């Protein structure tokens, strides 16, 4: 298929240039392996961790039960109406990302982002089967042979295996993982389960194996956003041009520290040259730091030609001054303060959580019903939530109008001023109740009504609503 071209024939579209990252060792590589190991272990193994919640409840430590509308998080259980905790977690994650970026640039991108973690894993497999950078380049350039076919097949088979495992682990977060994996293996799981396994298999295989750095450069919005979060004090991976330039042979006394060995370019997972300055594609993984340091050590030169450095620090070094770093500045204080505030609010919310809850909704139509004997009646939907595992009987009264006659709609009217409502265990029980009041007790068209739910040895639950009547006397 031909693609559109500019008037003088240059293509407006770029063919994919495959990146062959070279293996590297060093402290940042070790850190990256460790983070990768922790992230992968958490993702694959967490669904298997058990947590005893007693009879009749799931025993998975972390479970997002979409069908049952529950999220289980160790000792905590969240209901859909507590979605604000999810919002809170997302706000926290966002602020943490902001803070980390303001301090250390794109550490998230370089170390913990799933795209980085799986790409690293897939490259590791590739290197294991096909060899390091030069061997892979040679293999790709070579004509097809049995050896090449065998290596390629083996690599893609292992990639697919990892992808399928990722798909299975993903669905394990949303259902009882051991039983679900049994169903998946025996072909008795639902089409939805298989659909999601297939989806995650496809995305893992394509994004981790094929697309790799293309995702970071072209698909992800984060590289664009981060430029607004960085400032001259953020530490990012940077080449010390003042020391390195002009590049030249190690034997050349007039040349700078950079010997132009291209080690930094060869290890780069996004295929860029860090010496061109900090750029969009750079994910701050700092593998080039390891590569450069090992070369500098061999040459017996000072390490740190490529290093984590803020723009200010680099300018100071260039001027022969000691580099200073200012982690505490207006933007980091703001992010940290917001982080603490949101975390504090969430913690307070979690501590004050009650297992019982009452919601009252006044009937929309009719607002009131005129009864015989010059009485008025209003209808309300009362929803009792019970997060415990046992049924609980409550008494509903009206605090500010004890003369109100309460009844469960459809049940025999009797002149009672309190009714017994049972809250079913682990769920919401809905009652349609009616409240009747002599018209003479109404002063205007509206009267505030305070419902009080008492019982279960807990503080009373009070909900304010209204009692409506005709606005005319």
């Amino acid at each position: 298929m031909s693609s559109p071209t500019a008037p003088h024939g240059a293509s407006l579209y770029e063919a994919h240039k495959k990146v062959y990252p070279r293996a590297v060792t060093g402290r940042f590589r070790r850190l990256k392996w460790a983070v990768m190991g922790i992230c992968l272990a958490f993702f694959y193994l967490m669904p298997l961790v058990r947590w005893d919640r007693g009879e009749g409840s799931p025993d998975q430590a972390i479970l997002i039960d979409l069908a049952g509308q529950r999220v289980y998080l160790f000792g905590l259980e969240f209901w859909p109406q507590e979605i604000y905790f999810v919002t809170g977690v997302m706000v926290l994650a966002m602020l943490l990302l902001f803070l980390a970026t303001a301090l250390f640039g794109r550490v998230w991108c370089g170390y913990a982002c799933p795209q980085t973690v799986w790409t690293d894993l897939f490259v590791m497999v590739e290197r294991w089967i096909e060899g390091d950078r030069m061997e892979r380049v040679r293999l790709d350039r070579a004509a097809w042979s049995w050896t090449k076919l065998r290596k390629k097949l083996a690599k893609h088979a292992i990639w697919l295996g990892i992808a399928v495992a990722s798909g299975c682990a993903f669905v394990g977060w949303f259902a009882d993982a051991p039983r679900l994996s049994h169903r998946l293996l025996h072909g008795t799981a639902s089409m939805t389960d298989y659909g999601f396994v297939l989806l995650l298999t496809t995305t893992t295989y394509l994004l981790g194996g094929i697309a790799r750095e293309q995702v970071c450069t072209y698909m992800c919005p984060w590289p664009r956003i981060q430029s607004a979060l960085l400032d001259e004090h953020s530490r990012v991976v940077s080449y010390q041009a003042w020391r390195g330039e002009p590049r030249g042979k190690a034997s050349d006394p007039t040349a700078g520290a950079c010997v132009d060995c291209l080690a930094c370019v060869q290890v780069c997972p996004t295929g860029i040259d860090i010496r061109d300055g900090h750029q969009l594609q750079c994910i701050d993984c700092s593998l080039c730091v390891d590569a450069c340091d090992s070369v500098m050590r061999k040459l017996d030169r000072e390490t740190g030609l490529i290093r984590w450095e803020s723009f200010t620090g680099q300018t100071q070094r260039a001027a022969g001054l000691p580099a200073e770093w200012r982690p505490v500045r207006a933007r980091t204080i703001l992010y940290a303060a917001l982080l603490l505030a949101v975390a504090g609010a969430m913690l307070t919310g979690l501590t004050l959580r009650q297992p019982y809850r009452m919601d009252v909704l006044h009937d929309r139509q009719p607002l009131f019903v005129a009864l015989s004997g010059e009485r008025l009646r209003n209808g309300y939907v009362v929803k009792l939530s019970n997060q415990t595992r046992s049924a609980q009987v409550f008494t509903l009264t009206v605090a500010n109008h004890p003369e109100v006659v309460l009844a469960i709609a459809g049940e025999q009217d009797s002149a009672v001023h309190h009714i017994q409502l049972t809250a079913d265990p682990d769920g919401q029980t809905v009652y349609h109740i009616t409240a009747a009041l002599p018209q003479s007790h109404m002063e205007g068209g509206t009267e505030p009504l305070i419902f009080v739910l008492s019982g279960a040895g807990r503080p009373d639950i009070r909900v304010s609503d209204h009692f409506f009547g005709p606005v005319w006397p």
Partner: protein
Amino acid sequence: MSNEVEKDKLSGTDTTGHEWDGIKELNTPLPRWWLYTFYACILFAIGYCVLYPSIPLPWGGHTEGLLKFTNRKAIEEDLKANAVAARPQYASIAARDLDAIQADAKLRDFAVAGGRAAFAQNCAPCHGNSGQGAKGYPNLLDDVWLWGGSLDQIHQTIRFGVRNANPESHQGVVMPAWGEAAKNPPQVLAAAQISAVADYVLSLNHKDVDMGSAKAGQAVFAENCAACHGENAEGNQDMGAPPLITGVWLYGGDKASLVETITHGRAGQMPAWSERLDEPTVKMLALYVHQLGGGK
């Protein structure tokens, strides 16, 4: 046009060769796979147009697509599937009497939900979407019933209706037009008498009226109205004669409305729903109406 790629001197980037007022556009090429994604979208769109209804035709209508999909058909299939799924519950409702259904919480909930849907389709135009009624159409939420508010009485009323051609329907007694000589020759009341009896009825409901007029009205009431509405105006459900002492009015409780009602008479009607709906639906309607709050 030369075929040589021009390099921008400042940035070292290729240009596209496009130039506007001396400004040249730099060429930062999009990855080719992105273009292929775009082609894939075009292919998807073509496939969609072939399979699904999509292109309006100038002479009306639209292409139907190979799958012949329509939302109407999809909903009809859903409704059919629902009806099949609800068959066992319908059978239980048909087989059991109302009290037995009410005793079975699960079946009652099903019946009330079904009744709510049937009410919205059949009853809401007159009785309102919550059963709140309107002038001339009874409120089904209050505690005053023309023909009785027990479950069986409500069921009976829905099945056979009121004052219609069905021989089982409630006929009761029609409220005569007391002020129209042409319609009601032997029993016609004078305008003053009608005003007086209206005052009497208002006085029964603790309204401020001319007590002299009310006193005169009491005699008129005892002679003409008490036969149906009862000596104490307590009403009579066998006749469909409403009580006049509850403060709940079907046609309005102010003096003008009362005078109009007495002068021209009233005779509300309701269809016999057993002629239009199947028996389980009528039962579900009865259970639904009974639990609205007014059921006895």
